[in-house]
């Protein structure tokens, strides 16, 4: 595959980078990235990966655009309210870069469809808003052996790290299972400053590009936490947990399943801990 003159111009700032070059840009244009959730995190991920010239972007989301999404979900514009999120997303991606093939799934990501959906892709991005789905994505990537870029946001904070299954610590190595229902609020309940989704999602896109290009140091075995109020990043070193129920020495999880969906309820005041 060779680039057209327009494509060489479009990707010239990438091609100029010795770490990317024409060869790297070709890798990008042949890469397939699956994004679970076309919302706060999925928006910057999809927009930047589209601009970068990723070959195929897969998107799954069962939701329609709501007015309350527009404060942070920059894939969706005011006239999109009421429209399917994946279709709204596809239109923006193709407007940015018609080179990108977009595969949309207006559905929920479930234990039944997860493996079939991610198998054709090279990398998976977590852009979901609940714990059962985050654990399901983690487990599915382990079984399908796909690199995963995890992301999480809440209030003024965000977290991001990459997982290379069987090589680096997985989400379950650290967090085991979802917190008891009602203890940890969602963005819907607790709020989220919109820009944090942009910061964390953009780092997720960066990680995806680095993994595709095979450059730099991946964000594996270290968790990156961001605090927007302090404008501070903190890196927490971690490692694979031999007692992990998924990827440890004596795994108990041998097939995909879904944790029960948490009941929407705010945690009781006064239980908020250290910062």
């Amino acid at each position, binding site marked *: 595959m060779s680039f057209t003159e327009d494509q060489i111009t479009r990707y010239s700032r990438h091609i100029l980078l010795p770490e990317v070059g024409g060869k790297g840009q070709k890798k990008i244009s042949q890469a397939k990235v699956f994004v679970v959730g076309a919302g706060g*995190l999925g928006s910057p991920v999809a927009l930047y990966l589209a601009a970068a010239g990723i070959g195929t972007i897969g998107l799954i989301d069962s939701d329609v655009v709501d007015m309350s999404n527009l404060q942070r979900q920059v894939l969706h514009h005011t006239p999109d309210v009421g429209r399917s999120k994946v279709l709204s997303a596809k239109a923006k991606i193709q407007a940015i870069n018609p080179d990108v093939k977009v595969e949309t799934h207006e559905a929920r990501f479930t234990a039944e469809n997860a493996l079939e959906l991610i198998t054709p892709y090279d990398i998976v991005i977590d852009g979901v808003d609940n*714990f059962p789905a985050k654990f399901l994505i983690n487990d599915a990537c382990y079984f399908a052996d796909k690199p995963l870029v995890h992301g999480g946001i809440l209030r003024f904070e965000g977290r991001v790290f990459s997982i290379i299954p069987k090589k680096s610590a997985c989400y379950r*190595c*650290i*967090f085991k299972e979802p917190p008891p229902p009602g203890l940890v609020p969602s963005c819907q309940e607790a709020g989220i400053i919109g820009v944090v*989704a942009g910061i964390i999602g953009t780092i997720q896109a960066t990680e995806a590009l680095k993994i595709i290009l095979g450059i730099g140091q991946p964000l594996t075995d270290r968790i990156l936490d961001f605090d927007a109020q302090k404008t501070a990043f903190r890196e*927490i070193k*971690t490692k694979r947990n031999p*007692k992990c129920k998924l990827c440890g020495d004596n795994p108990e999880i041998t097939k995909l399943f879904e944790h029960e969906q948490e009941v929407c309820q705010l945690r009781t005041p006064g239980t908020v801990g250290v910062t």
Partner: protein
Amino acid sequence: MQVTINGKSEDLQAGNVMEVLKHKEVDPHMVAVELNTQIVERDQLEATQVKDGDKLEFLFFMGGGR
């Protein structure tokens, strides 16, 4: 003893991880605890002693994304 909790040095009385969590008013169900980069299993929080110079990380759940 001097212990680093989430990057901040703190002067604490000797105790186990569960006692440190209680002292910091952190519900143990809301965090994953790492002691010197090693995850402490939830059923080991009381059995795990914190020593002078240890580095503790309380990783709060962050479940949002949309």
